[in-house]
Every structure is written in structure tokens, then in C-alpha cells.
């Protein structure tokens, strides 16, 4: 890693470019945040029945839907980053927390007739408690074993819940529909994503964060330096679970129907990990960038037809190339010491190949 030996002071031009990127980013964030308000408010004189609101309104709703989905994946990827990126434990079953959060809200609103506002705070609590429970035995495992154990847990939780009649069994749960609340769900998801980033920022500056990174880099060394590795790992796992469960809880009310298939999708496990790694695992904004880029691509390619098949093959190739040549994620270019150059890719290739 000889690049560290060179000056890391960005040039004046570099600073200007970075400032420009920041401004563009902030403007984009502002537009994305305001859009749902303007798009989902039917004109005052319009008939409030969505059926007759017309095609424009339907398109607008789908834009907000896309934004909400992307915000949800930002939250999932940023949450995974706490355990997978910072702590270095490749959790492959975080969808269990998503599903538990969703079922908490689904059960409380549908069967217990609690309001959404009262049910939602219990989603992260339930997911975190479950993470603490399974974390104690599972976080004793390392590497592949931990990945497989969490993957199995994720699948098992969904299967168990599907077979409990109180949770709707095979038919699922139906939280009462909230009408004209598209903007609300977007803002809830965006707040969850923002919360995940804020939590990561706080963790990265704290004793807790240094402990997690020390565990990732060398767990034995961390423990003899005084890091309570068990407590820290379980803590990171529970924190990730809480943020993931919150997303699940919002999702349940948003979709107003949940069953095992819709809230325990195994592919979410892979997606949130890919997003975090492509963007830059262990970094603050990596998972955000990765989630926005990848989920946008996935949604854009979901159209169907022959061209979308080719596009999906292209996506696969892109993923493989990125993992090989940009192993530390795309935000690495904005980190200060690395610059987009042939040398960077050569070094990366050396790092990622045997």
C-alpha cells in the first residue's frame, strides 16, 4: 500500500471537483426528498378516487414507489454494513430481521388492531432482541460457517412463521390500508435510511466503532487489547437487526399485505451485501451509493423482454468486474488517497487474485 506514502492533500482542482460533486449530490437529495410531496398530491379540484385520477398520477405514484424502494435498500445495505462491513462478519440472513419487523407490524395492526404508529416502534425492538438471542451462539462461528448459519436462520425463521396460525399461516397478514400515504411511506423509508447512515457515522467515531474494526482486522489481538469481542459483535448485530427490522415494519404497512414470500425473500440477503460491497463495505457512504446505483439498475432492468435479459447479463458482468477491480468499492475514489488510474486497477487485481 505504497499510495499512503504519497501526499494525501487533494489538489486545488481536486477540491473543486469534490465540492462540485457534493453540491450536485445535495441538490439531488433535495429534489428526491421534495418530489413525493408534489407528485402524490392530487389537484384540489380532482376527484379523489385514484381510478379516475388519470395516467399522470399513476406514473407519478410509480416514481415515488421507486424512490421508496431505493430508500429501503439504502437502509438495508447501510444496516448490513454495521455487521458485515465494519465488524467483518458476513451475515447472510439479515432478511430474517426484515421479515420479523414486517410480521411484528402485520400482527399488531391486523390481529391486535393496534395503530401503525404504535406498532412500528416494536418492529426494531423485536428484531434486535432476536438478533441478540441468535447472535450469542452464531457469532462464535467465523467466515463461511457464520455466513451459512445466518443464511439458514434467515430461511428457517420465515418457514416457522408461515406455519403459525396466529401470524396468518399461509394466507399472510393484512395491515389496514392507509389511503394516499405514498409520500408518508417514502419519508419513513428515507428517514430509516438517514438513521442508518447517522448511526454508522456515530459508530465510526466512537470507541464502539474502533472496537468493531479491530475485531474485523484481528479478533484475537482485539480481545487481548481489552475489546469485549462477544458483546461488541452481538451489539453490532442487534443494531443492524433493529435498522433492518424497522425497514420491514414500514414495508408491511406500505404494501398492506405480507406473507412469508414477500417479506423473507432470500435474494434480499444477496442484494444488500452486493450493494454494500460495490459501494464500499466498511465506509460511511459506500452502501448508500451502492444501494442507489444497484437498485436503480435492477428496477430499470425489470421491464421484461429480450433486451432486459441481455441487460441482466450485463449487470452480472458488471458486478464481477467491479468486485475484481474495485474491491474496496466505488467510494474509494473519493476517499482522498486513491485516484482513478490504471495503476489503481492493477493494484486491485493483485489484491483480489490468488
Amino acid at each position, binding site marked *: *500500500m*505504497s499510495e*499512503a506514502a504519497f501526499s494525501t492533500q487533494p489538489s486545488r482542482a481536486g477540491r473543486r471537483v469534490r465540492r462540485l460533486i457534493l453540491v450536485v449530490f445535495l441538490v439531488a437529495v433535495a429534489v428526491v426528498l421534495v418530489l413525493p410531496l408534489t407528485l402524490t398530491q392530487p389537484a384540489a379540484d380532482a376527484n379523489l378516487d385514484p381510478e379516475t385520477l388519470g395516467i399522470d398520477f399513476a406514473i407519478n405514484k410509480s416514481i415515488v414507489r421507486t424512490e421508496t424502494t431505493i430508500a429501503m435498500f439504502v437502509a438495508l445495505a447501510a444496516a448490513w454494513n454495521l455487521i458485515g462491513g465494519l465488524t467483518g462478519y458476513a451475515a447472510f440472513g439479515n432478511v430474517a430481521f426484515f421479515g420479523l419487523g414486517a410480521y411484528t407490524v402485520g400482527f399488531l395492526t391486523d390481529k391486535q388492531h393496534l395503530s401503525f404508529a404504535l406498532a412500528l416502534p416494536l418492529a426494531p425492538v423485536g428484531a434486535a432482541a432476536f438478533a441478540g438471542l441468535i447472535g450469542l451462539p452464531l457469532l462464535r462461528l467465523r467466515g463461511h460457517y457464520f455466513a451459512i448459519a445466518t443464511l439458514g436462520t434467515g430461511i428457517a425463521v420465515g418457514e416457522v412463521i408461515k406455519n403459525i396460525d396466529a401470524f396468518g399461516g399461509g394466507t399472510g397478514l393484512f395491515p389496514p390500508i392507509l389511503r394516499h400515504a405514498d409520500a408518508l411511506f417514502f419519508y419513513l423509508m428515507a428517514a430509516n435510511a438517514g438513521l442508518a447512515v447517522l448511526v454508522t457515522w456515530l459508530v465510526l467515531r466512537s*470507541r464502539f466503532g474502533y*472496537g468493531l474494526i479491530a475485531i474485523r482486522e*484481528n479478533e*484475537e489481538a482485539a480481545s*487481548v*487489547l*481489552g475489546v469485549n469481542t462477544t458483546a461488541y459483535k452481538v451489539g453490532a448485530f442487534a443494531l443492524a437487526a433493529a435498522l433492518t427490522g424497522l425497514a420491514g415494519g414500514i414495508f408491511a404497512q406500505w404494501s398492506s399485505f405480507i406473507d412469508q414470500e414477500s417479506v423473507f425473500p432470500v435474494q434480499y440477503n444477496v442484494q444488500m451485501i452486493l450493494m454494500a460491497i460495490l459501494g464500499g463495505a466498511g465506509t460511511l457512504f459506500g452502501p448508500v451509493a451502492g444501494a442507489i446505483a444497484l437498485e436503480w439498475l435492477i428496477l430499470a432492468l425489470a421491464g421484461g423482454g429480450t433486451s432486459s435479459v441481455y441487460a441482466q447479463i450485463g449487470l452480472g458482468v458488471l458486478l464481477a468486474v467491479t468486485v475484481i477491480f474495485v474491491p474496496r468499492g466505488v467510494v474509494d475514489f473519493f476517499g482522498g488517497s486513491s485516484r482513478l488510474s490504471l495503476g489503481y486497477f492493477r493494484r486491485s487485481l493483485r489484491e483480489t487474485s490468488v
Partner: protein
Amino acid sequence: MLELAGVTKRFGGVAALSDLSLQVPEGEILGLIGPNGAGKTTLLNCISGVNRPDAGSITFQGRPIDGLPPHQIARLGIGRTFQVVKPFASMTVRENAAVGGLFGSAQAHLAPKAAFAWADEVLETVGLAPKAGLTVGSLTIPDRKRLEVARALATKPRLLLLDEVMAGLNPVEVDEALEVVRKVHAGGITIVLIEHVMRVVVGVCDRVIVLHMGQRLAEGTPDEVLQDRRVIEAYLGEKYAARRHA
């Protein structure tokens, strides 16, 4: 300060330590020498909680510590280095040392800002201050050994366990490292060190224990031990003895 009584540690059928007892009084520099596989590192592992002894007891400042997890032992004031260095590779030298100050003994456990200031002091002590901003990947082997010591020192230990921190250093570097050990000791820290470099053992140790097959083969001042027939046969070799007397 530290007392081991009847400590046994087996790996499969092999006893790495068998019924070993020893004491380390406060303020001493104790050297542990012996052939490879004698159980020296296992002994440090048992003291620091990395390994759990199968039998026997270990007490530190009057408190039994065998069976405690490593972080609690670190909290009580025992710091250690690893023979095969275990740096936090993605962190800078300064951050590595700061982790010791952020956690470590009850005297350490500093807030981030104070931990970084303390890390700078410790890096100054071991001579790594000019390289504080580098990542570990760009450090030479001797510097990585220094970092290992710095990180352990940053925990503000009462007892420091050093596992072959001078192996692979050239004579000038050994002298520098000896200076660091003396400085640390002068700061009131009791030291147990494993060494194969006899110049180090003679240079700083008050007392030496020779381990052989998990048991104590000999014990005494460095001079006594290095002239012991059994130690020459089991470890040092006739050539060393001849050279010493020449």
C-alpha cells in the same frame, strides 16, 4: 504480582505445559527461554486468557484470573504482544496504538481524543512517531514489532508479556529495542519476556526460567542459567557454551 500454581495445558495428547508453578514479583524482568515447543508461548497464552489452562490456578495481584476472557485480563492490567504480529491492517499506526488506549486496562479506557494523544506518546516511546500516519502495510518487520509493543503499552498495563519482540532484528535494532524495554521497566511495569536472543536475556533480565517440554528445566540469574549443563544440553548447545567461555 503474578503467581502460577500447577498449571497444565494439553493440546490433544500433548502437554504443552505440565504442572508448572512460578512467581513473578512486582518490578521484575523475567526471561523465559527454551527450545521451540517448550511451552513458552502457551504460558503467555494461559496468562493472557487466549488459552484456558486444563488444570492449576493463575492469580494476578491476588485475584484468580484463570478462565477469565482475554478482555477482562487486559482490563486488570496485563498487556501482551504476539510473536507473529497481529496488526490491524486497515488502520494507521496511530489508530492501532489508539485502540490500546481506547480499551486496555482500567487505567486506560480513554475517550477517543485522549486515546489518540496517548497513542502519540506511546509511539514516541517506541520510536514510531515519525510513521504514525502510515498504514501498517508500509511498515518494515522491525517496525511491526515495535507497533506490537506500542499497542500493548497503550493499554497502560501493570504487567507486560513480550513474545520474541527482538527476533529478526539486527544488532543495532536489538540495542534500540533493549533501550525501549528498559524505559518501559523504569516506568514501573513488570515484564515477562520470551527471547531467543541471549544478548537480550543477559542484558535486561533479573531472572531467567528455562522451559523444556512444558516443565521448568532451570531457573536463576542469566549467568547461572547459561552455564547450567542441562540448559546447554537441552537448548544452547556445546558450541554456544564454548563460545561464551572463549
